[in-house]
């Protein structure tokens, strides 16, 4: 297997994002690295659905996406494709959202004009009168079972109307059901059940004068009711349409190709024309064009071509330009590619354009948000909310500040400093406000800002206050928990499950330090020795920090012992005497780089690393160890053959 390592990655620490352009010639970049076969179908995640619907229909679809049944979150990087399928409840969520959005476009003339600019109409009217019972009737109508009220109304245009009746109930009727019928010109049109004090009845009315009659059919246990207010609202008459068949075809092609992120096939054009025409039959409001628009919008939002990102390109071939841009945009930014980008697709210098687009994308807020979520999951940041301490310096608000510190640090390191994986574990700064800075013995303002830390004490993530506080156990720092997280999260070490019943450690007695207590129960000669010889040493390295991550020099009156030994893949057995020394060793280890690269790979590809990905991971790990910035690694992954090509079956 041949690898093409470019100059930018061959040793010097590349800190300039502009240098990423040097590897724009991606056709030769990844050589013949193996490409894992990937699925062609990728169901949109809820965030992606929200952005796709919002973009397509020029509105904020958040309220709809928020009603969708939530996906189980089972893994720190659980954006894996196989968990994203359309189960019955989700299908129903999609359906209701589609119906309501399509109806919304139909009922709001300005929105309609924005979505169907070819059919922006003039002279539309809407009919929404409200009648107080005093206006309609000489006396307040009181109805017993079998009695009715009636009145005449001038209907300006034929359409479905919703009548709402505000009913006054006597005590005897409360909690009972009451059936109403609505008659139009003496003919029973529909009936409805009274719900609380609001009665809603839908009916289709013709243009002109109509006699409306409400019959109180059910006597609800001999009670009576009063009618206090009646209102009616009809679908708006949008006015005369401007759309002929050619116009319909133009709108359909533009709307559906935007929704599906690709050009329509010939047979699809006829399919969607049929769907449009079906709308007039299914909805039958009398406005065939508006019915067709509503029906098409509803159908498109339920179509698999909208709900999935689909790759049609042949196996082993590059993705089509549209597919590649769509994949890039959804995977990194959770949104469809914008129209401007898709318009550039026919340019001959697509390779360069892709590189520019990618470079631009890596600096956009959506990429920052997206990466932030992944790092939140990586760090199990939500668990910071459960931190509890009896220390006077702790209060529940501090937990939120711990989370903010981590997020601000990652943003600063990745996007502002163009930092590396090595920097993650060795940075001599953090982002802090006054409360967080105080934990480090430093000062800061009310807002989060970059502060320098004592390089003899602090080094990157390992010595960050939230991490140290989260992995403490009651009144003591927990070298076991800290060591487990370092192994599991930072080094991707596979640890066996703990035994079923593990008793908590007893309280420290006498002159023993907490480390000595832990060692006496899990160290050499104990039944937990085999696992804890891996777990404990990295935790011992952080003994210099108390339960809130503050520097300490003594434990139970004895000097802190943060020394230890550990075996890394490349370095073999290593020793250290301080936290910072251990952090440096970890930052140089192949495991730490490989682990982070693997997580980044999962983020980009939406799946776990598989055996066939070994070469890609190896190449990127090498680059990372030679100082490639994290953004550079992300860039490389997005330029890789594995991302841009379809794998062989």
């Amino acid at each position: 297997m041949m690898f093409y390592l470019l100059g930018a990655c061959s040793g010097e620490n590349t800190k300039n994002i502009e240098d990423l352009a040097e590897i724009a010639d991606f056709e030769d970049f990844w050589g013949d690295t193996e490409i894992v076969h990937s699925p062609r179908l990728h169901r949109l995640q809820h965030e992606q659905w929200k952005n796709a619907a919002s973009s397509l229909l020029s509105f904020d679809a958040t309220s709809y996406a928020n009603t969708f049944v939530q996906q189980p979150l089972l893994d720190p990087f659980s954006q894996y494709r196989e968990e994203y399928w359309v189960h019955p409840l989700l299908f129903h969520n999609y359906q209701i959202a589609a119906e309501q959005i399509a109806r919304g476009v139909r009922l709001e003339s300005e929105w309609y004009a924005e979505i169907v600019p070819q059919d922006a109409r003039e002279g539309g009217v809407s009919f929404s009168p409200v009648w107080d019972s005093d206006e309609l009737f000489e006396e307040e109508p009181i109805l017993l079972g079998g009695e009715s009220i009636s009145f005449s109304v001038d209907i300006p245009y034929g359409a479905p109307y919703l009548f709402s009746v505000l009913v006054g109930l006597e005590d005897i009727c409360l909690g009972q059901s009451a059936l109403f019928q609505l008659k139009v010109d003496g003919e029973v049109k529909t009936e409805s059940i009274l719900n609380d004090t609001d009665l809603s009845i839908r009916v289709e009315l013709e243009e002109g004068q109509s006699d409306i009659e409400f019959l109180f059919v059910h006597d609800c246990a001999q009670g009576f009711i009063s009618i206090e207010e009646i209102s009616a609202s009809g679908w708006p008459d949008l006015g005369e349409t401007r759309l002929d068949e050619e116009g319909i075809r133009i709108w359909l092609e533009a709307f559906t190709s935007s929704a599906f992120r690709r050009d329509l096939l010939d047979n699809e054009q006829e399919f969607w024309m049929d769907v449009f025409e079906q709308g007039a039959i299914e909805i039958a409001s009398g406005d065939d064009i508006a019915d067709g628009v509503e029906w098409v919008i509803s159908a498109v939002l339920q179509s698999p071509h909208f709900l999935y990102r689909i790759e049609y390109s042949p196996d082993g071939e590059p993705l089509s330009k549209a597919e590649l841009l769509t994949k890039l945009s959804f995977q990194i930014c959770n949104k469809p590619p914008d129209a401007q980008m898709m318009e550039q697709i026919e340019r001959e210098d697509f390779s360069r354009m892709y590189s520019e687009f990618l470079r631009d994308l890596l600096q956009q807020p959506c990429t920052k948000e997206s990466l932030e979520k992944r790092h939140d999951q990586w760090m199990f940041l939500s668990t910071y909310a459960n931190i509890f301490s009896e220390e006077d310096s702790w209060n529940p608000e501090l937990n939120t500040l711990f989370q903010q510190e981590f997020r601000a640090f990652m943003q600063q390191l990745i996007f502002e400093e163009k930092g590396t994986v090595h920097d993650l574990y060795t940075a001599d700064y953090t982002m802090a406000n006054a409360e967080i800075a105080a934990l480090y013995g430093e000062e800061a303002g009310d807002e989060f800002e970059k502060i320098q830390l004592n390089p003899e004490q602090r080094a990157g993530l390992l010595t960050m206050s939230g991490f140290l506080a989260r992995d403490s156990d009651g009144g003591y720092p927990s070298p076991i928990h800290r060591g487990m997280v370092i192994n599991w999260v930072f080094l991707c070490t596979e640890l066996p499950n703990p035994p079923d019943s593990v008793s908590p450690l007893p309280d420290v007695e006498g002159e023993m330090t907490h480390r000595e207590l832990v060692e006496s129960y899990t160290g050499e000669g104990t039944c937990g020795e085999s696992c804890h010889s891996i777990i404990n040493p990295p935790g011992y390295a952080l003994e210099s920090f108390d339960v809130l991550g503050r520097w300490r020099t003594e434990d139970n009156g004895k000097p802190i012992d943060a020394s230890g030994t550990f075996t890394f893949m490349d370095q073999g057995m290593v020793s250290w005497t301080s936290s910072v020394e251990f952090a440096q060793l970890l930052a140089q280890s192949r495991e730490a780089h490989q682990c982070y690269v693997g997580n980044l790979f999962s983020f980009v590809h939406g799946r776990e690393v598989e055996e066939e990905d070994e070469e890609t991971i190896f190449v990127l790990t090498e680059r990372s160890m030679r100082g490639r910035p994290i953004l550079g690694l992300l860039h490389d992954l997005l330029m890789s053959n594995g991302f841009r090509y379809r794998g062989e079956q």
Partner: protein
Amino acid sequence: MKRRTFLKIGTGGLALPFLEGDGWASDDIPPFLFVCRQANGVTQADGAEPDRFWPKQTGTITQQSLAADSDRVLSELAPWAEHLLICKGLRYAFPSNINAHLASGNQCLTAAKVWEEYPDANSLAMGESIDNYVARHFPEHGGEPLTLYTGPRNGQLEEVLSYRGSKELRAGEDDPWHTYQRMLGFQPSALDHRVLERRSSMNDLVLDQIHALMNDTRFSSADRQLLELHFDSVRDFERLAVQLSEDEAQQMALHQGQGILDDNRMLFARMHMDLLALVFSCGYTRAATLQIGDGDDATEYTIDGERFPSFHWVSHRIYSDGEEGESIQGAVEMHHKIDRLFAQTFGYHLSRLQEYGILDRGVSVFCNDLGSGVSHSYYNVPFILAGSANGFFKTGQFIDFEGIYHNKILNTLISSTGVRNEEGGFIDNFGDPSLEPGVLETLLA
């Protein structure tokens, strides 16, 4: 590949609970759990009163053997004998110092200790109930159980059965019409079959597109399975929308809000059951409960044209909710008839499941807060299981467990739905930690 094996959830290895696309009675329907609860005990041996509830012989039961014991309540379930597991000899673990009805109802599905409050005679379970436990293991089905109730709304001593967690009692849904509308996404009061018709047309459009993709040879088998799942989801949910007949829907709509009436108690129970059969068929949820009557069911049941006094009084055999009062003549016979009415209603549920072909695709439980009414006994609390849960249970048996705590049957019921512990074994430690763990092996196939 079957749907249930296509995806796995977590380390528990749960099977996903969906129908196969080809019909209601597929072998691949994962098990559901339903519990129907009666209050006030049953007419079994209690002091001087003879047993009029259980079959006369333990062991194998058949339609003939159950029917032959025609003087016993459970003879009402003879048509389903081979699907039954009649469990006697189960008891609640924790006594009550205040209100035996509430404390027993609270323990019924939780096997948890009971928190009791003076002077309101109120009590709450200090643990989660099995319906909640099962439902939350299936988040793709909403993660919530369906909690149904038919009874009065007086503001006290109402729901007792379903718990989200310690002292977190879940309110029941009174009205099957509202429940149905909520499932379909309608606004209350809209009975618009045109919407259903439109959806049916729209679903055809969706299915056509999915089908076309499924026939595209470029897609791998894994891609096609994803599409097949989507295809089946559309069809499954469409069934929920169309299978409730217009008559059934109208009946629910017209009785909206009338579940509080005593005369409608069993009508509402049956309407809930109409909905339940549909719900389990399409995988809307994996666990449901139906509580008939309030905490100490005071319904005045009308049977054979005779309106009985409050069922609670009947169970005490006196005109009183307390210990002293004038005797009710024929109270034991009344209680027996009420027991039969409940058994018949449970039988109605089983017949609805049979119509959908899913009786043995899950397990339905007919249980009671108490063993018997007069003594308010926590011994011999009936647990009548129906359905093999896809072959998990060995049905057609009547077993007397001779006084063991009922947490083990709760463990067994949970395990029947496919939920497993981290080691892949049965759930055996549900309920209060002080109770001996285990499942009832003799119930298993």
